[in-house]
């Protein structure tokens, strides 16, 4: 599974993307964030406030119950501020 990070999530996690292989219990967006949150202090801090995080799966906005597959591209980012 490919993870992409944007804006301050990228800064806090020190990377703009990474390949991860989450365990079987990661079946949707909520469980992915839960698992990621436990991958170290940087993740714990960056993902501490779930309300500040938006998620897109395969370039579509996703909800906590959006299901995930191994080949998915999952992007984590703060609320957008373009325009």
């Amino acid at each position, binding site marked *: 599974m490919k993870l992409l990070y944007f804006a301050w999530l990228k800064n806090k996690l020190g990377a703009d993307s990474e390949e991860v292989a989450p365990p079987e219990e990661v079946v949707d967006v909520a469980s992915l964030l839960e698992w990621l949150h436990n991958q170290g202090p940087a993740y714990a801090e960056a993902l501490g406030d779930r309300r500040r995080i938006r998620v897109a799966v395969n370039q579509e906005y996703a909800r906590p119950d959006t299901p995930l597959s191994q080949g998915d591209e999952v992007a984590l980012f703060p609320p*957008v501020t*373009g325009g």
Partner: protein
Amino acid sequence: MSVRVQEVDFDPGRELDRLTRENTGIGGVTSFIGLVRDMAGDQPVSGMTLEHYPGMTEKMLERIEAEAHERWPLDASLIIHRVGPLEAGDRIVMVATASAHRQAAFESCHFLIDWLKTKAPFWKAERTSEGQELWVEARESDEEASERWNR
């Protein structure tokens, strides 16, 4: 219909000309151009950097534009959004819609920029006068402006 995400600047006059050329059924064109302001709240800002999510950005912009064409009788439309480093006074974004009727042109143009601001994956980092880059927080007023088109 046309969507562009680019680092380079654009020429608003030329874009407006291209939008209406060879269609004399168009009665009016409304456009909005967003510029980099030199202040963020009460803090001076020297410029900003715009980050985006390549691929998803274009997809969302095209969807927003298609939605405008569903809702209003439009002859033409345009969304250009810049990315990368920008200075105060630089153009960031241009949206424009052309229609036989001015009400449709106004509403759809307003809709485009309101939805773009809350749905298209762009992020601004403002540069302070000391050269520090600070990520801009999303504003609730933008969310409200976007929500009113859901009514």
